[in-house]
């Protein structure tokens, strides 16, 4: 998934408050708050999304290691590395030596979780690599929709351009994860069968 191209994001100092005539999206902005994002705010949010994904994949890997599911743990660890590279690249694009404060303390996302986060509750101690990729796929698809929504809502050209660029990258990630899933193959139907399950009252 490490396929990010050289960015074309304009620096924040050149931000315009209004878009060029005739460039307005055909649909109205879905969320007034999103519509007024500056490029700095947008990129801070994009960085936070990647950073939260790094943290989450790391936590998922820890959980799998604790339960000796090392194959899936390694896969989550790899995902964390990819997302970490994306986060670093976003910093580089903006010329930030470190993320802005607004990005560090956690955003309030449209839903409870950051769009690219795999939910904790979807884990299973016997899950297989295909399941991990299935969760990653859903996360990438959500991220793609998120940037698409931001692009549609943006009223400044630089934010729209950046959002469309990131949406395209997420779309590429979706395709890559799908290809990866074909390689690992679907697990057997009885993958969750445990001859000595932890639950005695089922």
């Amino acid at each position, binding site marked *: 998934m490490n396929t990010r191209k050289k960015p074309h994001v304009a620096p924040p100092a050149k931000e315009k408050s209004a878009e060029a005539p005739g460039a307005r999206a055909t649909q109205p902005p879905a969320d007034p708050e999103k519509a007024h994002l500056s490029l700095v705010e947008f990129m801070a949010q994009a960085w936070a999304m990647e950073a939260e994904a790094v*943290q989450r994949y790391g936590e998922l890997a820890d959980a799998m290691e*604790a339960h000796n599911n090392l194959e899936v743990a390694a896969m989550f660890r790899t995902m964390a590395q990819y997302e970490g590279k994306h986060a670093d690249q976003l910093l580089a694009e903006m010329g930030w030596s470190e993320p802005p404060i607004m990005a560090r303390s956690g955003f309030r*996302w449209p839903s409870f979780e950051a769009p690219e986060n795999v939910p904790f509750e979807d884990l299973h*101690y016997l899950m297989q690599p295909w399941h991990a990729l299935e969760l990653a796929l859903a996360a990438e698809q959500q991220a793609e929709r998120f940037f698409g929504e931001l692009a549609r809502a943006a009223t400044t050209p630089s934010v729209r351009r950046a959002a469309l660029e990131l949406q395209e990258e997420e779309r590429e990630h979706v395709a890559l994860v799908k290809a990866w899933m074909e390689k690992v193959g679907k697990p057997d139907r009885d993958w969750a069968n445990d001859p000595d399950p932890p639950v005695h009252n089922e």
Partner: protein
Amino acid sequence: MNQPAPPTEVLTAANYKSVYKPIWCPGCGDFSVLSSVTKALAILQVPPHEVVVVSGIGCSSRIPAYTSCYGFHGVHGRALAAATGLKVARPELTVLAAGGDGDGYSIGGNHFLHACRRNVDLTYIVMDNHVYGMTKGQASPTTEPDWDNKLSPGGTGIRAFNPLVIALASGANFVARAFSGDPNGAAQIIAEGIRHPGFSFIEILSPCVTFRPEQREWKRQAHHAPVAPTDDAARAARRIMTDDGFNIGVLYAGDRTPYPLNGRSPQLTPEQLAAEFQT
């Protein structure tokens, strides 16, 4: 302390995590609560060595080991007793008590009432999954009366404990509900609870996917409280007693003076304390 990460100029959530990996079941909501606690401490920028996490017994009570703060993994149901003593003796520390619904509302129920009443300036986080997870799935005080399983066929038939109402009625100065599936929102609530003077009670709905797999649905049921926090206990009580149990937010923020009253500090220097044991 559990080997804190090397200090950086600005503390991040990672600075509050220990090197130990949680052994909770994959999918457990407590992972997310741990993340929220560390994020909250990063929001407040309080140094790890000035924070103490005190717990009782249970799955969620393992949380002190997973932070780089000072910790005390205590006796079943007694987290609040230890935390209260600590805060009164060392008021300069940020004291968090944490545990589960079984630990806090059953064997620790009496401590819960009186901790609310005393209003010592500490924060109590209860990871509520409506079940005793560590001992393999018995009904807890917050279990629904009709939860059917082999250990309580047909359900216990006993009305569930309402911790927020009890906290409010007993004098807690800050009452909030959060959801583990909303880690950033929970972090903000925890930070707010720590900042608020007096006893802050934060109930965090934290699914047990092993014994209550149906709780995965909580993410579709939880929602932000549509009202602003109030300092009117009667209004807060009405809200809490009539909501659906999935209302997330600060539900009450009072203005009671925390113990010790009138700013008196019972703190003694180690030398003064030692002198009391001489002769």
